[in-house]
């Protein structure tokens, strides 16, 4: 019962913060959006804990709420975005956005209503560090190594792109 209560709490907080990221009625400042995105990530990590994915919850807080959002804030401070606050949302953009999102949501809920999910049995899966590590270093060893190469490529690319003059 407590877990259910926490689920509703975390889910509501995630969705409210997610809404405030994209359409904060008080400020369109990107810094506010970034701060609410951090909160969204943290509440999502709470949902991961409720799903017993402990390793992923820690990674979510460390990588997303930590590294990625710090990068975002650095870039926001690097750029001068004062003019952004004076821009308003366009009615045309709001209309098209709501139509697209309504279509996606209706498709999604129709699929969910027809899906044979059934009554879920009591799951016993534990996403502990040991279980995930064993899987990562046995069955998923090759993708793991490829991802490390990808990170290296991304690092070189980011350094190259942020040099003073591109040749």
């Amino acid at each position, binding site marked *: 019962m407590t877990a*259910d209560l926490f689920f*509703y709490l975390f*889910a509501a907080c*995630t*969705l409210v913060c*997610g809404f405030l*990221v*994209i*359409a904060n009625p008080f400020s*369109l400042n*990107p810094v506010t*959006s970034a701060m609410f*995105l951090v909160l*969204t990530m943290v509440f*999502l990590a709470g*949902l991961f804990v409720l799903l017993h*994915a402990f*390793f*992923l919850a820690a990674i*979510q807080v460390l*990588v*997303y709420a930590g590294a*990625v959002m710090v*990068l*975002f804030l650095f*870039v926001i401070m*690097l*750029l001068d*975005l004062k003019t*952004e606050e004076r821009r308003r949302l366009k009615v045309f953009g*709001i209309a*098209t*956005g*709501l139509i*697209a*999102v309504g279509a996606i*949501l209706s498709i*999604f809920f129709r699929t*969910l209503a027809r899906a044979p*999910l059934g*009554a*879920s049995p009591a*799951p016993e*899966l534990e*996403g502990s560090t040991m*279980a*995930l590590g064993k*899987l*990562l270093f046995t069955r*998923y060893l090759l*993708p793991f190594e490829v*991802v490390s190469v*990808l990170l290296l*490529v*991304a*690092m070189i*690319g*980011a350094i190259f*792109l*942020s040099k003073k003059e591109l040749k």
Partner: protein
Amino acid sequence: MSVGLAHYLVVSGILFSLGLLGVILRRNLLVIYMGLEMMLNAANLALVAFSRFTNNLDGQVFVFFIITVAAAEVAVGLALIVALYRRRQSAHVEDLTFMKL
């Protein structure tokens, strides 16, 4: 009613739609990027929920890879945005129409 797979999928779907709405609604490149991150996170939540309720750890390994790729994507994407801002002095998509015919 006890919380099951459908509950998590509903949260994931709504979060995905919010991210999509942000991408369409906002005109600032950085906020569009945040919307993309939210969509990736919604997919992660669905994957973890499926992994938990089907007793299969593969979904969580997949989420691990998605987080890694998303971090790489953010690094390169933000470097691109900074390079673009140096050239055009704007991070606003309506000012960046020089590829339009």
